[in-house]
C-alpha cells in the first residue's frame, strides 16, 4: 500500500478501493481494507506475527545465501538491493513455530524480495521445511507468494521445482500433513511445483493464482477468460483450492487443520497435552 511521503504517515490508501485508512486501524485489521476487504501483501514478519503463536517462531537455515552461480547480468546488484530493502537473505524464510499450540515447520515466501522468486536458496529452504516436517514428525505450513522461478539462476531454478516436489512426495509417504496457503500472487514455477501438491490448499481472497501471465493465457486462446480469471475465487471454482480463508480466520483454520490431520503423528497428542 502507499504510505504517503513519510513511512510513519498516519494514513494509508487502500490499493484496491483507494479509500484512505488510519494506519493504526489498518495494521490492527491485519492490512485488510475495512471498506473493500482487500488483503494487502504482507512482509514475512507480519505474516508470522499475525498467524503463529506469539513468540513461538525460531528461524532456521539462515546461513543460506545465493552464490550467483551463472554470473547472470545484473543479478548481484539486484539481489543486494533486495536484501537491503527487505532485510532478508532471500525470498523465503523458514523455521519452527507453533499454531494454537501445535508445533509446525514453516516456510514463508515474501513477494517484496525479488517478487518472491524461487532460486536455489528459496528451493532449498522450502525443501528443508518439508523435510524438517518429516524428520520431526510435525505438520508443514507454507505461505506462498511468488512470481515463479528466478530466471537469473537459469536451469538451477527449474530444478528447484523438482527438488521441492520430491520433498512433498516424502511428506505424503511419511504421513506428514502439508498445508499451503496461496497469497497474492502465487504463480508459474512455484504454483507448478510444491504449491499445487499440498494436502490442503487455502488461499487468501482475490489472490492472483496462475501458471502463465494472464496476458499470455488470454492471447493463447479463443476461449474467453472470465472476469475473475486467475483470481482465487475462480481458481476455487476450477477445483484447485480447498477454501478461501480471510486473513483474520487463517490462524483458527490452520490450527484446526494441523490438529486434526496431524493427530496421528507420533507424540503430537502428547505435545498437545
Amino acid at each position, binding site marked *: 500500500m502507499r504510505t504517503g511521503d513519510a513511512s510513519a504517515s498516519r494514513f494509508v490508501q487502500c490499493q484496491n478501493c483507494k479509500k484512505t485508512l488510519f494506519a493504526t486501524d489498518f495494521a490492527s485489521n491485519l492490512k485488510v481494507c475495512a471498506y473493500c476487504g482487500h488483503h494487502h501483501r504482507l512482509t514475512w514478519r507480519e505474516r508470522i506475527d499475525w498467524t503463529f503463536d506469539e513468540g513461538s517462531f525460531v528461524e532456521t537455515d539462515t*546461513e*543460506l*545465501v*545465493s*552464490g550467483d*552461480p*551463472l554470473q*547472470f*547480468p*545484473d543479478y548481484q546488484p539486484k539481489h543486494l538491493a533486495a536484501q537491503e530493502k527487505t532485510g532478508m537473505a532471500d525470498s523465503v524464510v523458514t523455521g519452527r513455530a507453533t499454531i494454537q499450540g501445535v508445533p509446525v515447520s514453516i516456510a514463508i515466501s515474501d513477494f517484496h524480495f525479488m517478487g518472491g522468486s524461487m532460486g*536455489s*536458496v528459496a*528451493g*532449498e529452504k522450502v*525443501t528443508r521445511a518439508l523435510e524438517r516436517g518429516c524428520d520431526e514428525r510435525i505438520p508443514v505450513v507454507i505461505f506462498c507468494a511468488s512470481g515463479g*522461478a528466478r*530466471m*537469473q*539462476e*537459469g*536451469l*538451477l*531454478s*527449474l*530444478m*528447484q*521445482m*523438482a*527438488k521441492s*516436489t*520430491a520433498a*512433498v*512426495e*516424502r511428506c*505424503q*509417504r511419511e504421513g506428514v500433513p502439508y498445508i499451503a496457503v496461496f497469497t497474492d500472487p502465487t504463480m*508459474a*514455477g512455484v*504454483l*507448478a*511445483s*510444491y*504449491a*499445487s*501438491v499440498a494436502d490442503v490448499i487455502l488461499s487468501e481472497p482475490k489472490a492472483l493464482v*496462475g*501458471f*502463465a501471465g494472464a496476458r*499470455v*493465457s488470454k492471447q*493463447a*486462446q479463443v*476461449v*474467453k*477468460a472470465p472476469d475473475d*480469471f*486467475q483470481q482465487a475465487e475462480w481458481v476455487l471454482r*476450477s*477445483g*484447485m483450492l480447498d477454501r478461501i480463508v480471510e486473513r483474520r480466520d487463517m490462524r483458527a483454520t490452520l490450527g484446526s487443520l494441523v490438529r486434526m490431520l496431524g493427530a496421528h503423528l507420533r507424540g503430537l497428542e502428547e505435545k498437545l497435552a
Partner: protein
Amino acid sequence: MKPLLDLEEAIAQLKSAIVRETEPGKQEEYQGRIEGYEKRRDNVLDIMFSRLGPWEEVLLARADPRPYTLDYVSAIFTDFIELDGDRRAGADHAIVAGPAMLEDRPVMLLGHQKGRNLTERTFRNFAMAKPEGYRKAIRLFEMAERFRLPVVTFVDTPAADPGVESESRGISEAIAASMLAMFKLTVPTVSVIIGEGGSGGAIGIAASNKVLMQEHAVYSVIPPEGCAAILWRDPAKKDKAAAALRLTSKSALELGLVDQVLPEPRGSAYRNPLEAAETVKDGILEALSELDRLSPQEVKAHRYSRFRSMGAFLA
C-alpha cells in the same frame, strides 16, 4: 548457410549425374569430386558448429527437420502401442505414450511430440501439453510401477500450454503432480532432452534417475525471448538472454544438472537421424543397465538424492 547449401547442391547434382554417366572413367572422376565437396562440406559444418552461439543453439533445437520423439521411438523401440487418455477430461496429442520393447525388455515410453506441418502442429498443439497430457503421463507412470516397466521419456516442448482452458483444468497442478508421480516410482526412469527443454512443461516429465541431453538440445527455465522481455523490456535481446541463461547441453552438464551429453552426428541430429538415434539408444541402455543394479527402494532414493543435491548457494 549459403556455402553449405551450395556445396550440398553440388554434391546432389554430382550424385544424380553419376547415375546417368556412361563414359568410362567419368564415374571415378565424379566420385572424387563428390568426396572433395563432402570434405569441404564437413569442414564448413565443423567450423559452423564450433562457432555456434547459445541463440543459434536455440534455433537449432527448435529447427523443423530435427528428429522428434516418434522418430526416435521408431528407430530405437519396437512394438510401440500408443495409449491415450487421462481418464479425466480429454486426449492430448502433445504427449505420446505407451509401452514398447527396448531390445528384449518392455518399457513405458512417453514424450512430447512436435509436428512437421501446420496440420500436424495444430494436432500436436505445438508440443505444448495440456493438463490432460500430464495426467495421462501420471496414469502411465503408475501403470509402469505396477508392471515393473522402466520409464523412458523424451523431452521436446517449448512450454506447457498456457491457455485459459489449461488454467481452468489446473495445468500447474498437473505438472507438479506429474513430477510427484515420478518421484513415487521404484522402477528406473530415464529422460532424454532431445530438442527444446522448455521450463515447467519439460521438467514435468523429466524428474528421472538419469537425464541425458542431446548435444544440440537446450534446457531452460524460460525462453530467451521471454527472459529478455521481462528483464530488459526488449525481446530482441534474446541472444543476450540465451547466453545468460546457460541453456546449452554443455552448460547443463557443467552445472551438474544432466548426467550425460549425447553427441550428435556432424551437422546435428537431422543430418543423420539414425546415427543420432543409435547414440540415444546406447545412452538409454547404458543408463538403464546402471540403474538395474539398484533395488526398487534404491532406485527411488537415487532419484531423490539426484534432485536433492541441485542448487548452488553459499552456506
